[in-house]
Each structure stands twice: as structure tokens, then as C-alpha cells.
């Protein structure tokens, strides 16, 4: 008898029915039927976050598990497992490989064979390393009903409409990138994560796990992009603007103050690295 496991299992979700949709329209219509119908992506966090489901909708047979590359962009199906993204040669080349690198920090290979990019995007997890990296890559999302929106708009939206995420589009801009995750242990969630990209003299900066959801530091980006020369002062001022414009909180992993200090250091390092700045 294992009493602890018995207690845990009483709290685990109950699914009435599992249904593999044969078309997107069928999946969408079933999704609208009940508030207790939901789509399952990778399902890695399902039992930790959901208690009761009428119909769990599978999208396995709808062709959403491919990475398609063309001249202008890379399209990642919402059901593509993280491991497939981590090992994709085109994504390893893009923006100094920050997306595969951010994924590489997510727990172990087994879970990355299960978890999908679509699940990460729709989960809007505050601890996510991946969303932080995607934000500075100008990622766009394609939904079945809504159409195309930016990842930033999706993350900032409180929209509750039911929809199906089809793919994540990343433009193939020539850019350098920087990503840093700081965690207490290798498998733990981040205390802070920072991503930067630099393309055509334009910088993008995002900070996640504050512990709030990843966000672009727009004031700092505007400041940096308006400067004609990069200097130590510009870099320091930019990092200071980031920690003042974004909110940082405290939780069991870290204080807000420590998060700010870490963010400032890694934003400065990132700015130097992506711009190849040398004093």
C-alpha cells in the first residue's frame, strides 16, 4: 500500500472521453460544445493543471507536427515536440540558436520528447524559457479561427475565446541572439531568464520568470535603438531602464531584488554579446 500515491491520485484529473479529431473544423466545433472540452497538446503538465474534462481532443492526425522551412520563415506546427525543435538544423542556425538553447534547458530529453511548442505557447507559463526566446525572434502565431497574431499580442491578451493554435512562424531574419537562464539547479524553473536579439541595428530584449510571464522591455529597446553609438553608459542605462520598466516579484525561488540584479547583469552581457561591443 502506498498511501501518498493514493492521496495524489484522488486529486488527478478525470477525463470522460478522449477523441482524436479527424479535421480542424471538427475539433473546433467540439471545442465550442462545452467549457469542459479541451485540446491536449503534449500533455506534459496536464495532470498538474487540470481537474475535470468532458472531452479531451487530440490533434495527432491533423498534420500539425512538422517544421516547414522556406526562404522567408520557419513554420513550426503546434504539435511539434520540443526535442524536434532543439535538434532542427535551421533553428540551430537562426539567431545564434537561442530557441534550441532555451529548449535545451527544459528538464530532460524524455519530457522534451513529449512537450510541444503549442502547449508552451497556449499555457502562457510564467516560468517558460521558451517564450522569452520566441519574443525576441518576432514569433507570430496562426490560429484556426482568429488567424495570425504576434506572440506578444497573444501573451498580453486576456482573450478567452476558444481557438486552435495551428503553427508558430519565425521570420528568418539575419540576427544575433543571446539567451540566459538562471536557476537554482539544472532541472529547476528559472529564477530569471533573459533573451536578446540584434538585427539591422535594432535590439530586442525580453525578460521572463520575473516570476511573471515573459515580456518585451519596450522602453529600453526604444532607448537603445535611438542611440547612434554603443558605449558602456548606453549599455548600463539600457539595463537600468529594463529593470525599472518591468515588474519583478518575489517567490520561494528568489526575491525581486535578486531577480533585478541578475537581469541587469545578463542584459548588459547580452547587449555586449549581440552587438559584438568591445570597449
Amino acid at each position, binding site marked *: 500500500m502506498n498511501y501518498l500515491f493514493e492521496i495524489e491520485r484522488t486529486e488527478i484529473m478525470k477525463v470522460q472521453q*478522449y477523441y482524436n479529431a479527424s479535421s480542424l473544423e471538427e475539433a473546433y466545433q467540439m471545442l465550442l460544445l462545452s467549457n469542459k472540452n479541451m485540446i*491536449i497538446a503534449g500533455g506534459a503538465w496536464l*495532470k498538474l493543471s487540470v481537474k475535470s474534462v468532458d472531452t479531451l481532443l487530440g490533434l495527432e492526425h491533423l498534420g500539425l507536427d512538422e517544421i516547414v522551412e522556406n526562404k522567408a520563415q520557419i513554420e513550426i506546427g503546434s504539435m511539434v515536440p520540443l526535442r524536434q525543435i532543439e535538434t532542427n538544423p535551421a533553428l540551430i542556425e537562426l539567431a545564434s540558436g537561442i530557441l534550441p538553447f532555451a529548449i535545451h534547458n527544459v528538464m*530532460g530529453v524524455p519530457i522534451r520528447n513529449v512537450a510541444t511548442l503549442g502547449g508552451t505557447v497556449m499555457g502562457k507559463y510564467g516560468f517558460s524559457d521558451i517564450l522569452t526566446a520566441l519574443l525576441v525572434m518576432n514569433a507570430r502565431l496562426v490560429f484556426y479561427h482568429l488567424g495570425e497574431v504576434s506572440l506578444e499580442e497573444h501573451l498580453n491578451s486576456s482573450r478567452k475565446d476558444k481557438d486552435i493554435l495551428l503553427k508558430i512562424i519565425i521570420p528568418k531574419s539575419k540576427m544575433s541572439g543571446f539567451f540566459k537562464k538562471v536557476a537554482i539547479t539544472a532541472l529547476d524553473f528559472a529564477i530569471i531568464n533573459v533573451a536578446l536579439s540584434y538585427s539591422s541595428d535594432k535590439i530586442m530584449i525580453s525578460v521572463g520568470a520575473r516570476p511573471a510571464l515573459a515580456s518585451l522591455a519596450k522602453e529600453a529597446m526604444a532607448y537603445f535603438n535611438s542611440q547612434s553609438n554603443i558605449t558602456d553608459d548606453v549599455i548600463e542605462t539600457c539595463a537600468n531602464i529594463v529593470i525599472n520598466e518591468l515588474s519583478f516579484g518575489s517567490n520561494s525561488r528568489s526575491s525581486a531584488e535578486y531577480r533585478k540584479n541578475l537581469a541587469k547583469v545578463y542584459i548588459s552581457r547580452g547587449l555586449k554579446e549581440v552587438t559584438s561591443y568591445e570597449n
Partner: protein
Amino acid sequence: MKINLVINNIKKEFNVDPSEYLLDTLRNNHYLSVKRGCDSTSCGVCTVLLDGKPVPSCSILSVRATGHEITTVEGIQKEAEKLSGYFGLEGADQCGYCNPSMALAVYALKNELENPTDDQIREYLVGNLCRCTGYVSQHKAIKKYLGDKA
């Protein structure tokens, strides 16, 4: 719901609850080498191979595994014996609880990465925890196993 799995190259049919996870289906049907640990995707002791790739069976609904090939450590018996020989030589196990999942993960690593570096070995296995050994002796044993082309 009825599901069809191919477990260690043998076709099987089970009746499962839609909420049931692959770990429970396997253990309920006497595949007891698949261990329960954290039950929340963190420790890796429930690892099995799904179509040759290591996955945490505690996080895959059984209904989603239907039609797929599942491999437990019994399905790679010769390779597991070879690896466990090196584990013995290096003193790389104590309680043995993580050994089946570790063997499956190492087997998957061997198939996925050609001549992996030390860092690649460590990174590939970071999700398979062992609370006894401290990993150094395991790492030595795994390197010897990977270098054994016989």
C-alpha cells in the same frame, strides 16, 4: 476505451480509462520494471521508449499511445545486460531503482548520438535521476558501454 500497443514487439490490447496514464497501464499489466517515482515528469524512473524515443510514461495518457511501439527494459535485454556489466565493474548502482529507466535512456542515446561527448552524455541523461551514486561512476560505465562495439 480499447487501445492497441506493441510492447517489446508483442501486440497487446488493453481496456483503459481515458484518464489513465501509460505508467499505470504498464504496471497494472505486470510490466513492473517500469517504476513509479515522482509521478510528475521530474525524475525519469518511469522512462520507456515510445517508437524508440525516451518518454516519461507518467505523463502520457494511455489512449495517446495506441498504435505505437513501447519498449521496456525487457525489450532491450542484451543491451541492458551489457550495460549492467559495466555498471557492476564501476560500482555504478546501489539500490537499482533507476537502472531500468537509465538503461533505456542510455540505449536511446546510443541510437541517437554518434560518438557523444562527455557533455552530450550528461545533458542527455539529466532527466534521469539517481539518488545513490552521484553519477560519476555511472558516467564512467556508460562511456565504456558506448565504446564497446562488440
